[in-house]
């Protein structure tokens, strides 16, 4: 049994969205100071790894980037995503017992289709890591617990129709915070009902409330689902000093959460209290994952008496947990009741807003309702950019579980649209069973295979 906790620390000290943007060079500076001054990297329980660059193929396994991958990612993105892959390899090679990728830029708001930056994210680091793990090591069932204060809408979107990836997100209620989603009724697509669970918490929730959710809902559900791996999408903006949110979580709270959740891999997401929270929260998480005593980790202004949960909030949280437990218990029958669709496809339409880049996207999604597999997906997406330009794409995604029939059908649809691409700028095929990814450029009439 490996004993060490792997760390990839990639603070990208030379990358920012803009000089005063929360996602800037300085974000992990004080975390570096704290971790290095503690001597964390020298501990026998810790093994530090160097990040590497993810390939375009690693990205194409998850995303449809418009107009192409190159336009959506910088070297910093490739390194942040690649950092998670280094730990995935180390874990699977049994060099480490668990790992924490302290990387930026973050990724959990990046959806399957990428027209631009949403919520500081362009590409989804966790999803890229998970698809890499599945491809390279044949991992099937994975659970993601999103502990960021924001709803992990990008990760939810990517795995909404995948019954083998359990996505659990707790976050500040979407009625009070970006991105305004993550409600209890978002439970997964027709073939993956119940594999998405959202726990919207009232502003001001403390350690007590979050630990209640963890103990009473998250851990029992994980126990039922029996994933091969647990991934913590580890945002730190539930912290009581975070400038972008309003929760009351502490460094001790985060450390204990990780000690109880025991994620195999954790990937840093948001968290913008770069002085008052991050140095302490990150130290706490690292120590907890390494099985070291974290009881001495404390914010300078922490006073126990300031963190009492009002009783009415606890009542609300308890009811929420009860409600979701019921759904989880009955997910199979509830899922069947919801599938009243006639025909071969389940369809949904929606619009998505990119806050950072001011892009509006309209999406029409079709999921093949197959009796033997989770079905493939077809997405038509139209991005409306500032200054009036638009781009429209058609994308076919074949999941790795797809039956041979579905695979053939899906490839057929892609071929058909390549021949008949009217109204489209790009056509994509994400063929996971073959691990081959194509993008067709309509204007240039040329198809490339992404490597």
């Amino acid at each position, binding site marked *: 049994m490996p004993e060490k906790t792997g760390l*990839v*620390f*990639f*603070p*990208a*000290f*030379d*990358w920012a969205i803009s*000089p*005063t943007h*929360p996602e*800037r*060079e*300085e974000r992990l*500076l*004080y975390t*570096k*100071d*704290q971790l*290095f*001054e*503690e*001597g*964390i990297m*020298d*501990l026998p329980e810790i093994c*530090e*790894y*160097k*990040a*590497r*660059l993810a390939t375009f193929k690693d990205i194409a396994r998850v995303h449809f980037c418009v107009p192409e991958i190159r336009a959506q990612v910088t*070297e*910093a993105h490739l*390194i942040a995503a690649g950092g998670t892959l280094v730990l995935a390899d180390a874990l699977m090679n049994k060099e480490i017992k668990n790992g924490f990728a302290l990387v930026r830029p973050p990724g959990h708001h990046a959806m399957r289709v990428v027209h631009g930056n949403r919520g500081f994210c362009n590409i989804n680091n966790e999803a890229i890591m998970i698809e890499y793990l599945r491809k390279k090591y044949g991992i099937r069932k994975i659970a993601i617990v999103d502990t960021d204060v924001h709803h992990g809408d990008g990760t939810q979107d990517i795995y909404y129709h995948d019954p083998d990836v359990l996505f659990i997100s707790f976050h500040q209620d979407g009625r009070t915070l970006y991105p305004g989603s993550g409600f209890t009724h978002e439970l997964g697509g027709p073939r993956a009902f119940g594999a998405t669970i959202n726990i919207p918490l009232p502003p001001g929730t403390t350690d007590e409330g979050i630990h209640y959710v963890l103990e009473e809902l998250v851990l029992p559900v994980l126990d039922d689902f029996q994933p091969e791996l647990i991934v913590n999408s580890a945002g730190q903006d539930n912290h009581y000093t975070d*400038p972008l949110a309003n929760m009351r979580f502490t460094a001790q709270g985060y450390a204990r959460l990780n000690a109880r959740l025991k994620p195999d891999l954790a990937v840093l997401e948001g968290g913008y209290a770069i*002085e008052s929270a991050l*140095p*302490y929260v990150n*130290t706490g998480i690292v*120590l907890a994952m390494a099985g*070291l*005593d974290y*009881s*001495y*980790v*404390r914010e*300078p202004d922490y006073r126990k008496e300031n963190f009492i949960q009002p009783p009415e909030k606890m009542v609300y949280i308890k009811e929420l947990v009860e409600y979701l437990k019921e759904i989880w218990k009955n997910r199979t029958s509830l899922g069947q009741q919801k599938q009243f669709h006639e025909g071969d496809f389940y369809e949904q339409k929606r619009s998505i807003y990119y806050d950072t880049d001011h892009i509006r996207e309209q999406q029409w999604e079709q999921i093949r309702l197959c009796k033997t597999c989770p079905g493939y997906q077809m997405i038509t997406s139209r991005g409306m950019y500032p200054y009036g330009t638009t781009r429209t794409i058609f994308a076919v995604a074949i999941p790795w579980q797809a039956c041979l029939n579905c695979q053939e059908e899906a490839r057929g649809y892609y071929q058909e649209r390549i021949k008949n691409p009217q109204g489209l700028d790009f056509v994509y095929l994400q063929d996971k069973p073959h691990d081959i990814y194509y993008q067709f450029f309509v204007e240039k009439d040329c198809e490339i295979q992404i490597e």
Partner: protein
Amino acid sequence: MIIGIDVGGTYTDAVLLKQEQVLEKIKTPTIPDDLLTSLLKALEPLLKAAKNNQIDRIVFSTTLITNLIATGNIDPVALVLIPGPGLNPNTYNFNIPDTFILSGAIDYRGREIEPLKEKEIKECLEAVRARGIKRVAIVGKFSQRNKNHEEAVASYFKQHAPEIQTVMGHQVSGRLNFPRRVVTSLLTLATQNRFQEFYSQIQKVLAQRGITAPIYILKADGGTLPFAQAFLKPVETIFSGPAASTLGVLALTPSGQTSVVLDIGGTTTDLALILSGKPLLASRGARINNHLTHVRAFATKSVALGGDSVVQVGPDSSLEILPQRAGAAYCLGGPQPTPTDAMRVAGLITIGDEKRAREAMNKLGSKLKLPAEQTAALIIELMVKRIAREINEMFLAWEEEPAYRIWELLQKQKIRPQNVVGIGASAPAILPLLGKEMGCRALVPPYAEVANAIGAALAKVTLRLTFHFDTERNFYFIEETGVQEKLGVKGQLSLADAEEMAFKWLRQEGEKLGIPPGEEPELVYSEMFNMVRGWTTTGRLYDICVQFPPGILEDWLERREQNA
């Protein structure tokens, strides 16, 4: 004229240099447990050779600190720690029974987040006195960003117990890493007096011989320090041997190239790297007694493989070189076959008795049903392949070191050596084969056998200053010197201003160490971070590092180029 002396574990090497010439060289066995006599034994003939010419400088590289620590011949020290929140201080294993932990905390910006408690300091001093402790290292987390707590404790001790010797963490190293600062502070205090004693003796014997030349000590990072300064941080002179040989190679080979330096000895082969003419420093501080420290040292690797390693036929009927020595080579009267015997049979060397070497090869060969020549060739091949593999692994390890910036990560491309440069007894025999194996040039420079003494003699005085400016707190500190001062600048300090200030400091401090005013300092790195409150910039952090880098005295290099 310059004198360089390297007192190593086995041999003491010494050279007398005049301009680009080696006037005299000495190689003599080191007398165990008597560094002073070893040193004098090497020095006397050099002084004779110098006749009455003026000696301009003498540089020593010794194993003094290594020996003191290895033999436990150091002074007991108590530890007073101010760790603040974070890791449980009991997680650190310093092996110091007299450890005291005080309340109080400083954060990463140098702000006090918890005051000291005077009552605790008082009780601590009482306990220290009751146990008869004479030396105390006082170290706080983030003391390099605010020394007030360390100073308050130290001055309390000074006032109430002036007989107790103290050292403060921020004086020893300002680099991040509290546990390494603790270990380095401990070692500093534990060796200071003995270091002083030893060098007083040296000064005395030199004075008796009428020598007034300035004396320098070589450090692990390849720089030299005037003797008087070395007293403050004696532990920095540990592991100066590998630095001496690397600098020696730098002095004896073409400049600007990428080379592997190999010192092939009897029991070990020591490796060091020169990348584009610059010796590679270890990214972590030196490991001493199994503890990491803040001592900057060359990146070196010691492989348990040398000319005297024992060779045997393993259980699977193949030759293996064991990582130990049983004595001298068989051809030199030793008990077991060794690579040296193989080299003798192969005609690569001429030392030792050929008949005995052949006997050793036959002993092994009979088990393999091979003649002596073929057995010898196999052993040499084994040795060369192993060294080549270790060299490649060393480059790989360098590539795999963490990087925290995009440019750093992208820049660490695959680099492979142009030269393999060998010093040590077996080098001339092995090097040509190793060069062939690795596809690069093999060099055995002239005077290779005393390259370390040449390296010591020619090493430059170095100085590195790392600045941390915090314009919001209007404050700056210097890692290496423990300076923590108000900036006293009106308005925002620009990055250019900060760099200018750093260079000014460096020149001033350099002058004190005797660095000639014409010497060009270099900017190691310069980084700027905006501090933002809400969406407006309220201050900046600048991290700036400037240095006079390690290297070889300029005029030696210039004359060498002219003569070439």
